[in-house]
């Protein structure tokens, strides 16, 4: 564990939803810190509050009470626009269903976050998008459209898009949920590579298998932290190599 100040710090976080006359307590007081360079998995079954957690961490939702400090900034009181700015500059999202713009090339998809950052010139935008695509091994798919790529390739484009604005944290939401085991492991290899390069990653999943590729697992249950443990990180490349070769279909 790093000895720096936490890059992300939440304290007694609560989130209630009004459902008609009833109030649902999705988060009932969650606290944890994530330090720079950590690769953390947030685990939990459906209803555990992990989606709510992710929405708040991603600055798309605000807690009912408690504190959330991201990269030294208190986010609880920020306006819609200010939150949008934080999302654009400090957070990189990777979604379960990739969320690439259809009929839009890989590089244009990757450039997208930079379009909302007026400080970046179009030449700079292109350079950084190419760099990000290179990082996920898609230098040869720059001008492909999403429907011309496999699920794994699409998810790699999405990862490149999350990297392009050089965020302080990458938030992945069930990023392997739509993929088969081999492709999932390939994607985890990329995340482990990003981790080695010093990126901070929070990975939300309900698969314990995937959690073993990170170094720390926070398990949520009924809106509370049930377990928070640091553990050995399983090597995704080794796991991938250990898989039986893909079946050949006649």
């Amino acid at each position, binding site marked *: 564990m790093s000895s720096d100040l936490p890059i992300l710090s939440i304290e007694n976080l609560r989130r209630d939803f009004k459902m008609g006359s009833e109030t649902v307590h999705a988060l009932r007081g969650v606290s944890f810190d994530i330090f720079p360079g950590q690769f953390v998995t947030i685990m939990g079954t459906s209803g555990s509050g992990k989606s709510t957690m992710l*929405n708040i961490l*991603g600055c*798309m*939702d605000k807690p009912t009470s408690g504190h959330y400090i991201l990269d030294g900034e208190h986010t609880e009181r920020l306006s*819609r*626009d200010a939150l*949008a*700015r934080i*999302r*654009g*500059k400090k957070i990189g*999202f990777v*979604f379960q269903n990739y*969320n690439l*713009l*259809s*009929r*839009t090339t890989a590089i244009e998809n990757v450039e*997208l*976050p930079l*379009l*909302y*950052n*007026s400080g970046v010139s*179009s030449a700079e935008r292109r350079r950084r998008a190419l760099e990000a695509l290179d990082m996920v091994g898609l230098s040869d798919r720059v001008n492909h459209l999403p429907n011309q790529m496999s699920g794994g390739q699409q998810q790699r484009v999405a990862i490149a*898009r999350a990297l392009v*604005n050089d965020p302080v944290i990458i938030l992945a939401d069930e990023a392997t949920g739509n993929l088969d085991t081999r492709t999932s492991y390939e994607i985890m290899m990329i995340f482990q590579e990003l981790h080695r390069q010093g990126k901070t990653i929070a990975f939300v999943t309900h698969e314990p298998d995937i959690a073993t590729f990170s170094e720390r697992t926070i398990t949520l249950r009924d809106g509370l932290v049930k377990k928070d443990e640091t553990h050995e990180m399983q090597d995704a490349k080794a796991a991938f190599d250990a898989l039986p070769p893909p079946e050949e279909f006649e």
Partner: protein
Amino acid sequence: MNPLTLAKISLRALLRNRMRTFLSVLGIVIGVAAVITMVAMGEGSRQSIKEQMTSMGTNAIIVMPNWNRRGGVQAESSEMLEEKDVIAIRENATYINGVSPMITVNGQAIVGNNNSPTTLSGISADYLKIRNYEIEDGVMFDDAADRMAKVCVIGQTVVKNLFAGENPIGKTIRYKSIPLKVIGTLKSKGSGDFGQDNDDVIFTPYQTVMRRFSATTNIRQIYANSIGEGYAQKATEEIMGILKERRNWTKPTDPFRVFTQEEMITMVTSTSDMLALVLTVIAGISLFVGGIGIMNIMYVSVTERTKEIGLRMAIGARGRDILMQFLFESVTISLMGGVIGILLGVAASQIVKTVMGWPMIVSFASVIISFAVCFATGVFFGWYPARKASKLDPIEALRYE
């Protein structure tokens, strides 16, 4: 977000849905083309009527009996004009350049085997300058010397109808069995778009008509012209004053009606103006419907692209950025429709002009206004859908299937 990037994003979205974009552009195209053509038609007819009325003369004033109409039945006029009125106006009016009575007789002008169904107009010499007629050949009759003389001055249509290339000067025309000697011909004034022919005229001294043709002392109309533009009102009041004074008129209503040329233009053009207005309003409605088409498309677009909007927001787009994107799309649609519609409208006006021979005038103002209205349409009808898009919650938008 800088405008260039905004344009790029919006145009890409429009190109992704070519057919839909094309159809909503088409709605605006039809609206704008209709407006341009209708306005051109209205403006064209207005101009041609104006020219028509100007050919009547310069600063002309017409005095007529004040026919009382009750329930659509024309009652007897209370007062008739007479020769002494003309003389009184000629002698006393200071804002008048010339004055002439006008008495007409309908019949056939005959020369040998040729005839011409031309109205015979009894006038005095001033009538020529009031109506802008000029002598082409021969002379005009003189009010004093040719009093009651059996002479006439004829227009070019009559020359053509009766004399077939021969020189008419000195020849005799028979009108209602009365021989009239041709002493002059008039220069051609051409015909107006009303269809009436300014050259189909036979002028003779008004006393000739009064004594020899209609045996009356009444005069149907008095023509006059004021000394210049801007004096029409004063001249009108002066004439009315003279006419009232001669009759010791004390009733509150005027004994006669006096029209200035401007009033006549206004009267005649008001009908065509009304028609043009109605046509333009109908065309405007079609533009409005085109705008609703845009709104509809933008709504569909926002709903269909909810997920895209959610994604854009998740990666840093502010509500304002989304608003601008969709607004830019709707304005692009409406302006594209505007440009194409203007071109189409101008082309249609030209076609109507050449093929059907209608007077069409595409005014620069109508083009500019159409373009501005298109921009406003785009903003107005794009605003609500764009606003809706910008207010979406990123979490729910991303979850939208």
